[in-house]
């Protein structure tokens, strides 16, 4: 599809990730947390990539459910796997940051909790596809669709739930010097996410072509 663009974009992404640590190093320190806060650049960017992947998976699933186009299902699977992967990054970097910044590994912070729930939903998607037996592609598509629709509800309810109690885990508002590195990292992550989606979709397409070849051999 965008095959010709893939290699140049991959090079750009690699370059961005190579440069990112330097940008982050030169970014201003945050007042209270110091060095530790700098994990935020990757943590928050991964979070954005995660929600993008979840939406892509959800929309692909919806299209697949109603049109049965295999291409839509491929996109859905790719999105779900990416969601799980980025979710893992967010859920590991989050507690690492929290531990150093506020002394506790986990604090039922609104964003982390929402991410955890989303991560579990898409894990369930992958479990269903793997262990559900025949026909589980449609069933998993329903899970993904519901998962995507759930995002605003989970986020809102966890947010309100958390603000009822005093909390120290408020993401600091960005100082001017931080915005540059932040958006740079966001773009880098979104770019890599898109590239991974493309590769994974292509892989799924090859897998289906292999199935068709198996069937053709029988004829």
């Amino acid at each position, binding site marked *: 599809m965008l095959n010709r663009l893939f290699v140049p974009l991959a090079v750009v992404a690699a370059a961005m990730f190579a440069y990112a640590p330097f940008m982050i190093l030169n970014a201003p320190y945050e007042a209270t947390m110091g060095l530790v806060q700098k994990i935020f650049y990757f943590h928050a960017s991964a979070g954005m990539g995660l929600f993008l992947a979840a939406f892509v998976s959800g929309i692909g699933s919806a299209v697949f459910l109603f049109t049965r186009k295999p291409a839509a299902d491929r996109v859905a699977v790719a999105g779900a796997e990416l969601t799980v992967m980025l979710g893992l990054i967010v859920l590991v970097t989050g507690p690492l940051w929290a531990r150093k910044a506020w002394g506790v590994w986990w604090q039922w912070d609104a964003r982390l909790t929402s991410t955890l729930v989303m991560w579990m939903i898409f894990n369930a998607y992958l479990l269903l596809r793997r262990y559900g037996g*025949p026909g589980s592609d449609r069933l998993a598509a329903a899970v993904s669709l519901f998962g995507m629709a759930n995002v605003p509800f989970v986020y809102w309810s966890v947010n309100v739930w958390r603000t009822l109690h005093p909390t120290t885990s408020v993401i600091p508002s960005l100082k001017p010097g931080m915005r540059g590195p932040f958006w740079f990292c966001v773009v880098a992550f979104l770019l890599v996410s898109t590239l991974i989606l493309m590769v994974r979709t292509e892989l799924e397409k090859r897998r289906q072509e292999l*199935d068709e070849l*198996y*069937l053709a051999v*029988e*004829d």
Partner: protein
Amino acid sequence: MSLDFNQLRIVDVSRTFGRRRALNKVSLTAGAGTMTALLGHNGAGKSTLLSIAATLLQASSGRVAYGDIDAATGGSALRARIGLLGHDLYLYPELTAGENLEFFAKVYGLDGIARRVAAALERAGLTDRRDDTVAGFSRGMRQKLALERALIHEPRLLLLDEPFTGLDEAARSALRDRLRVAREAGAIIILTTHDTAAIEGLTDATATLVDGRLAA
């Protein structure tokens, strides 16, 4: 709402599950008032073909036509003219014979339910067991009830999956008679079995599936 057809045409139907091809370009035609037997070993694809004919499963390729109506566009009106009886009999063991029949009669939107239920029980020879729960019935009795349930809406197309399994000779004979009656009434009957002896002298045509293909 009322839809009817005189012929079932299955044209070059294939069905794949991942890497496994369950059916490979199978074609079959059956007209009203005929009984066709689908033979083959377990795993040959008989149940798959029956599910496709019942509109419960979509074919991966090929066409299924009910008269002029296509499987994809038939909708619930088409389903109202199809009767299916699987190996598991589709009965609620906690309900009585009468209640099972009544429920399905209502689901099919039939009128004169009391009359139809009484007639069905009569044909199954279960009139005195009307208020007994199905859980207490023998296999043969359940089979008879299940068959009447499948026929209660007078379907044009009747599909039966291994209906002779687990029946003694008397029950088999009763089943054969009941099917003959249905055939006289103009139904298109397709049944699967791997027991050729059971259908001797009964069917008008046979088709044999071997590994998803029709044997000549």
